[in-house]
């Protein structure tokens, strides 16, 4: 155990986390240059494109120190977005230390601090690493000052590197070995292993990624998941080299994988504790939370005949995303579909993109909503996460909506504008604290609905990217709610309806109309877009029609060319949903919730 180190790299976006991970892997000589693909750990296309890590990954790096001793270093990669902060916290709980990576040009940024806090909560050894020192804009002294004043860490312990150029890599390895403590634990004790990830393998079922704190697990053992008491027989254990490497056991201090015939990832809960059925540990490891979807939206195929394919796609997708939940649903405007729950809007967009890309389907998502609670006059209580199921307003005794506590970290100079934004978002019970000179922590209680409605984007915008944000769900609070419908050429489009606070109805309806005007392309006739509460129209825009759109000439040689152009346009139109006679692009449905700052 004394020759094992478990660590993670945490950083603000674009500070070079994936590049450093690549360089560490390369340095160990596990992969030859020819097979090397940038950002090895981000192996989904969508992760490389967005430059973010969605799923956690782990890799085991064998390292020989300068004085010749052999070590096993387990690098656990983490996702980098508030939607996935729970997964980050579980990954960090599996480590003893972190490399806190800071861009030498940009210095300390919002996520640097947010991640530092997560690491501190987990009592991890923190090694600041200043990256990109080869850049002309690099200012190592300034960054060291920030490490001291803003992070409260000792700048003398900071390392300097250029992951891109491969400078300073060996020093990082030496620091990991010397400064991060070796794991503690009793290999002979009752098994306690933390599940920090689970992925689906089409041939073997679910592969559980875990960190063993105490005890030992080996093939043939019966393991128990402590949250639901389910038991499974272990088929294989091992560790992560570039490919999986089978072992005869994994023990206290180690990071590895387990196959135990678990069918889907939904059977496994990240953060859960895994123990032995015949010799369980006393209590689970701390920090376990059930996934709770907070944002809901319906997914429909654009072509109704794709419904069955969509059903298959979601079933397959679900195998690999335990946080995603769905059930059958139908809409008057959009037909048969599925009501789905997500961790947040980013999670929603990722699901949308992956379903479209990996299963080649064109889909539409209805306007996202949170889950409201209504007490009806007959005393019954119902939960509504789909505006289409909004109860008859005369039957409602009271409405309630979920509240969260938002934790906001940002430089003091933005305090005024952040507070203004939070007030606008119906924030209450604010608390303000100073972290260090010039840096504040502000907490607010806010309706979740206001948070999913463009809060994150606007917060990033008013703090010019220096703000970081996290939240926890609190409780339900009474609220005056109304249903805002959208009518396109007089026809109600249920998938565009929103439940909102009465005071926000008018501005939201107007905003929705304006956004739809931007998103719906001009057509051959005038399109009227209206927002309405009940029968009352509260906002209106119109999209003027095309008047002239025909090519001048069309003779022998032009016919094929012209047809190809029309075929292309027709294909684009197939990606739109025709409601009444109006073609609405898929982007329109999500755009209703997006803010001005996106453009």
């Amino acid at each position: 155990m004394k020759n094992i180190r478990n660590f993670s790299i945490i950083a603000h976006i674009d500070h070079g986390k994936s590049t450093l991970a690549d360089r560490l892997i390369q340095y160990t000589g596990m992969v030859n240059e020819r097979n090397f693909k940038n950002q090895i750990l981000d192996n989904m296309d969508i992760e490389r494109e967005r430059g973010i890590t969605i799923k956690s990954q782990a890799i085991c790096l064998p390292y020989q120190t300068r004085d010749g001793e052999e070590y096993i270093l387990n690098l656990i990669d983490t996702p980098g977005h508030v939607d996935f902060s729970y997964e980050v916290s579980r990954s960090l709980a599996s480590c003893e230390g972190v490399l806190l990576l800071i861009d030498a040009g940009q210095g300390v940024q919002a996520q640097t601090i947010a991640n530092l806090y997560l690491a501190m909560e987990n009592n991890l050894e923190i090694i600041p690493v200043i990256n990109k020192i080869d850049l002309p804009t690099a200012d190592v002294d300034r960054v060291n000052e920030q490490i001291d004043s803003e992070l409260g860490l000792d700048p003398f312990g900071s390392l300097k590197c250029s992951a891109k150029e491969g400078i300073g890599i060996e020093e990082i390895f030496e620091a990991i070995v010397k400064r991060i403590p070796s794991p503690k634990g009793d290999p002979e004790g009752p098994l306690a292993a933390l599940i920090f990830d689970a992925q689906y393998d089409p041939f073997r079922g679910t592969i559980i990624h875990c960190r063993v704190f105490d005890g030992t697990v080996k093939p043939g053992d019966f393991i128990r998941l402590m949250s639901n008491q389910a038991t499974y027989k272990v088929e294989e254990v091992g560790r992560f080299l570039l490919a999986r490497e089978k072992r005869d056991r994994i023990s206290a201090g180690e990071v590895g994988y387990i196959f135990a015939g678990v069918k889907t990832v939904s059977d496994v809960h990240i953060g859960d504790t895994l123990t032995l059925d015949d010799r369980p540990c006393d209590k689970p490891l701390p920090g376990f939370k059930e996934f709770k979807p907070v944002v809901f939206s319906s997914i429909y195929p654009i072509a109704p005949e794709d419904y069955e394919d969509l059903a298959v796609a979601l079933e397959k997708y679900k195998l690999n995303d335990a946080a995603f939940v769905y059930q059958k649903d139908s809409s008057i405007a959009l037909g048969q579909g599925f009501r789905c729950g997500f961790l947040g809007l980013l999670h929603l967009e990722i699901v949308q993109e992956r379903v479209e890309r990996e299963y080649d389907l064109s889909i539409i998502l209805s306007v996202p909503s949170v889950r409201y609670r209504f007490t009806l006059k007959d005393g019954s209580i119902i939960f509504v996460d789909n505006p289409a199921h909004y109860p008859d307003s005369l039957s409602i005794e009271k409405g309630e909506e979920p509240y969260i506590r938002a934790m906001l970290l940002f430089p003091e100079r933005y305090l005024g504008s952040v507070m203004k934004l939070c007030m606008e978002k119906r924030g209450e019970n604010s608390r303000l604290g100073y972290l260090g000179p010039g840096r504040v922590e502000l907490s607010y209680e806010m309706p979740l609905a206001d948070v999913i409605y463009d809060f994150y984007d606007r917060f990033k915008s008013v703090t010019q990217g220096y703000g970081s944000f996290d939240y926890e769900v609190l409780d339900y609070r009474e609220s005056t709610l109304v249903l805002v419908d959208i009518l396109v050429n007089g026809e109600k489009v249920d998938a565009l309806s929103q439940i909102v606070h009465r005071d926000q109805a008018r501005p939201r309806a107007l905003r929705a109309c304006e956004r739809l005007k931007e998103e719906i392309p001009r057509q051959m006739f005038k399109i009227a877009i209206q927002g309405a509460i009940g029968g009352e129209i509260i906002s209106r825009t119109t999209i003027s029609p095309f008047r002239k759109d025909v090519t001048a000439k069309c003779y022998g040689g032009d016919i094929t060319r012209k047809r190809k152009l029309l075929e292309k346009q027709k294909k684009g139109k197939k990606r739109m949903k025709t409601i009444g006679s109006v073609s609405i692009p898929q982007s329109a449905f999500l755009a209703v919730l997006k803010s001005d700052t996106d453009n």
Partner: protein
Amino acid sequence: MNSEKIPGLYIHIPFCLSKCLYCDFYSSTSISAVPDFLNGLFKEMEMYLNQFNPFDTVYIGGGTPSLLSSKQLENILIKARKNFDLISDAEITIEANPADLNRSFLESIREIGINRINIGVQSFDEKALNFLGRRHSVRQAFSSVEASRKAGFKNMGLDLIYGIPGQDMESWRDTLKQALVFSPEHLSCYQLTLEAKTPLGIRHRKGEFSVPVEALQLEYFTKTSELLEDAGYIHYEVSNFARGHEHTSRHNQKYWDHSPFLGLGPSAHSFQGNQRWWNRRSLDRYLAAVHEGKRPVEDTEILTMEQLRLEALYLGLRTKKGIALEDFKTRYHFDLFAEKKEILTKLVEEGLISIRGDQLVPTQSGFALADRLSLI
């Protein structure tokens, strides 16, 4: 499928003295290669011996066919008659540049059987001609039209362009009125189209000039139609007007109703059944193939029923006649009226189409949106 339709013959003469700045048709300025080309053309004709007969139209286009001598044109027609059946009253059209037209040339080509002339006047405004890079003057435009009449052409068409930078509605109206003075049997009025690789297209992309916005384009389109209809012309296709049904272009109609046509010469397109093929877009490569005894075809496409349907829709909606629903159902296996009832009803309400008995017809507003209408 087209068994009841009579094919047309197109012959592409790929030569120009100078290239107009907006044109993206294939042509070469190496006039010395004309004899080689003609030899190649005659060989190509032999390769299609008896495959399309009979033809009831011949269209000699380009390029600039009026660059050829009347003797060379005569030879083309002799060879065409030798290799194909041309019916006795075939419409035989030549495209001509005003600068090339003198009385004796015109009389000679009348004599060899060319009975329709389409003159590329483009504008009666000198500034506009300069902008387009035409090599003729307004004066030459006048004299060519007059000479054509004197030479006995009773079926004469003029090509005109609107939407030229620097032009306004008034000067376009002047050009139209000037054209009407000659009472041409046919008028083609095109909106200037800026093709990407042409000099004007490139200059436009660089922002050197702007073209009319959509509302103004529509105004040109509508005013043109009104003015010419008032003068007794039928607006029978998006860009084409005829002084009476007998003066519509019989040849061009074939492109719009999926009739078969054979195109000869570099870059020419052909269509038969559900196949379309096109020749190599280079005189050298065209000749190389022909001399090897091979058809100089660059590529062929076989159209699916869905593709044929889309073409039939967008081509049909370009014409005043519109689409015969029963015929469409028979030829393209699609009952437009039943399958697209909702959107068709909406389009009728919006005044873009009308349905009279079996005919689906674009209205004046519908004409201006013909491409988009076909995407229903």
